């Protein structure tokens, strides 16, 4: 098929069983005003694994993702029920500051959104707002994150240039570098490749594989091939419900639900 076809090889189920579930979503329901967007979702994400959320537009996968770092708090008139736990603690716990939650849960958006600042300032933004002023720490973090995001070699000579001068793919990798600079535990990716060409997409997918060693990654994608290539587990959503959640191999080779099969084989959605 393609060079990355070998990656489809799914981890044996036992291995992920051995890992502790890092994110636990329990009977989670969510409303935008009167509109119910999510209905009783229960799903666990194991540590240092990649979970892909797939489903047609409007199925609630982005909504769920944006609840993991409470980005939906910005929207007026929202309501939720059930619970989401990260590392055993509810993110809605009144003792948890939403800011500290977001520092632990990094996010990469669909549209790359670098700040109109230099590349360096973009990468170390999260550290700066945490109050880090030591230049040595910032330099070190900048280089490490850019290397992890596979961007270092391309930009190391122009760290002080505006980030807005980068190409689309570079900008998205810069946003990944920015999201991982303060070493979050979880990385949320909301269709990170939807605006990129296949080469840039390939680079980012490769990156996801490498980042898996350190981060727990949840990725929302519209591309079934991408889900198959990068994820260990896949969750299929439809109309706000979780239809099926299993290892990626199982979902793509042998889904139990008829809706899942219809969707991944392209018969609807």
């Amino acid at each position, binding site marked *: 098929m393609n060079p990355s076809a070998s990656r489809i090889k799914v981890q044996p189920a036992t291995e992920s069983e051995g890992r502790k579930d890092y994110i636990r979503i329990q009977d989670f329901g969510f409303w935008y005003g009167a509109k119910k967007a999510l209905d009783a979702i229960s799903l666990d994400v194991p540590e240092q694994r990649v979970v892909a959320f797939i489903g047609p537009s409007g199925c609630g996968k982005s909504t769920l993702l944006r609840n993991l770092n409470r980005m939906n708090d910005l929207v007026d008139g929202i309501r939720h029920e059930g619970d989401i736990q990260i590392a055993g603690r509810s993110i809605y716990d009144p003792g948890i500051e939403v800011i500290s939650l977001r520092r632990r849960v990094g996010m990469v*958006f669909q549209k790359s959104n*670098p700040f109109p600042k230099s590349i360096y300032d973009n990468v170390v933004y999260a550290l700066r707002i945490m109050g880090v002023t030591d230049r040595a720490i910032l330099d070190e973090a900048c280089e490490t994150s850019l290397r992890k995001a596979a961007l270092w070699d391309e930009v190391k000579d122009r760290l002080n240039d*505006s980030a807005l001068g980068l190409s689309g793919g570079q900008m998205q990798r810069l946003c990944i570098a920015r999201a991982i600079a303060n070493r979050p535990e979880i990385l949320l990716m909301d269709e990170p490749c939807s605006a990129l060409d296949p080469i840039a997409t390939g680079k980012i997918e490769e990156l996801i594989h490498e980042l898996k060693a350190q981060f727990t990654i949840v990725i929302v994608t519209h591309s079934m091939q991408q889900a198959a290539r990068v994820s260990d587990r896949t969750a299929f959503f439809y109309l706000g419900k979780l239809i099926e959640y299993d290892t990626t191999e199982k979902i793509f080779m042998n889904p139990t639900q008829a809706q899942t099969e219809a969707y991944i084989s392209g018969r609807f959605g």
Partner: protein
Amino acid sequence: MTQPAYDNSAPKGEPWVWFTSLGLIIGLTMVAGLLGLVLINGFSVFWAPAVPTVKLSDGTVMMGQLAQRRVRPDSPASQPKYERQYQVGLRELNGASYVWVEEAKIVQEDFATQTMGLERMENGPAFVTPLAFVDAAGRRVPLTKSTFEALLNEVERASEIRSELNAIQRSKIGAVNAKMELARIDLRRAEDRGESVLEIKAKLAALDMEFNQLRAQSEKVVAKNALAKLEARDARGREVVLPMSTIVRAWLPNDMSAWDRVCLFFSRLREFLFDEPREANTEGGLMPAIFGTLVMTVFMSLLVTPFGVIAAIYLREYAKDGVILRMVRICVNNLAGVPSIVFGVFGLGFFVYVLGGSIDQLFFSDQLKYNNNTPVFGTGGLLWCSLTLALMTLPVVIVATEEALSAVPRGMREASLAAGASKWQTIRDILLPASAPGILTGVILAMARGAGEVAPLMLVGVVKLAPTLPVDMVEPFLHFDRKFMHLGFHIYDLGFQSPDSDAARPMVFATTLLLIVLVVCLNLGAITIRNRLRARYKGASF
């Protein structure tokens, strides 16, 4: 292929391009006409035209420069009769500076080379035939073409002596007067409290002596030029003797090269820009008004920008959307439409009387008590003018800032919050820098509106003639309590309050031109800054 019946293939609505462009053309014509009128009339003030000697059929002779020519209002439209207005000058002899003459009555008009134009310290200009001048040493020199240079030197000398005198009277005597004023207050306070007044009296006596010395000094300076004078004859042959100290400028309007005329033009322009006004503001320069306008506009911007930006940040970023927020927005927008005089009344009622009055009670009670209740801040002044105009232009800045904030891409805001930034950090580090160009646009609009506003200022501290500038070398350097002069008010004052409206008319145009130039300069400066900022964020939206 046949076309369906409903498609007649003629493009629809294309003539609208003509109609809509007409609106633009009308607007542009009006702007160009306005600017043209102001430019021509404004600059002609500084130009020295030839000065004819006019003989009329009834035997009157006069000498003067043509001011305007128009159709007589009582003449039929088919056979228009014209009349001309001459500026004849020598107000003290002629009664009026300007004379209307029926064109039909003019018998002869000649341009005698010896005709001399004079600008004077008082009574307006004069047009005379010079005979001789007496220099400072008392030597009488008959005036010919060859001795004209010598006369110019005498005029130059007189102006140097004038500025010397000015330095003594304005700065030194002014400073002594201010000190005496303070000492008198001290004296009254000491007397009131029954404290020893000896020291203060000694101080007053010393100041008095200094004052007398300075007065003697200034008299000596005046005496240096007491003999110098110009002897001349006016158009009707009357003898005119003009002390040299009253002459500002002399020129030979019918006997000068084009280059001399250009030099005279720029010399007058320089006086207009950098000197102080004379003759109830109808002559001389506008420096205090230019300075006052600039200082006031800058202070206003400094006041309005932080207020407006902070208010807009609250409205856009923190306030919960709802009925109250919408009402506040409506109020802010309506505030922009409130007539400016209303702000003036508010400024007078609240800032001057309430705020200023309280400040005086709290901090200057001594001064009030022992200085005949003369208010310090409880009267109009620079601070209150700036505050009033800041209040007036606040909605402009708020609206512009709100729009600039809402125009920042949502992604940037989300990225910052997702990185763990608090709302305030997001505002400070991301939103404000990204919306700076938009905020500056608002400030530019506010400055343009503030610099041209007159009505509210008349109530809260602008005056026809201010003896001192609001910023000078006397501590505390910035005098927020002082009244000041303003170009807009200057125009109003010249045009409607001047004792000699004919003499004031050209100055109205020149001042208008200056006000336009000043506003354009302020705006250009702000636009340059904005474009620099914008270049920094180029490509921020895609």
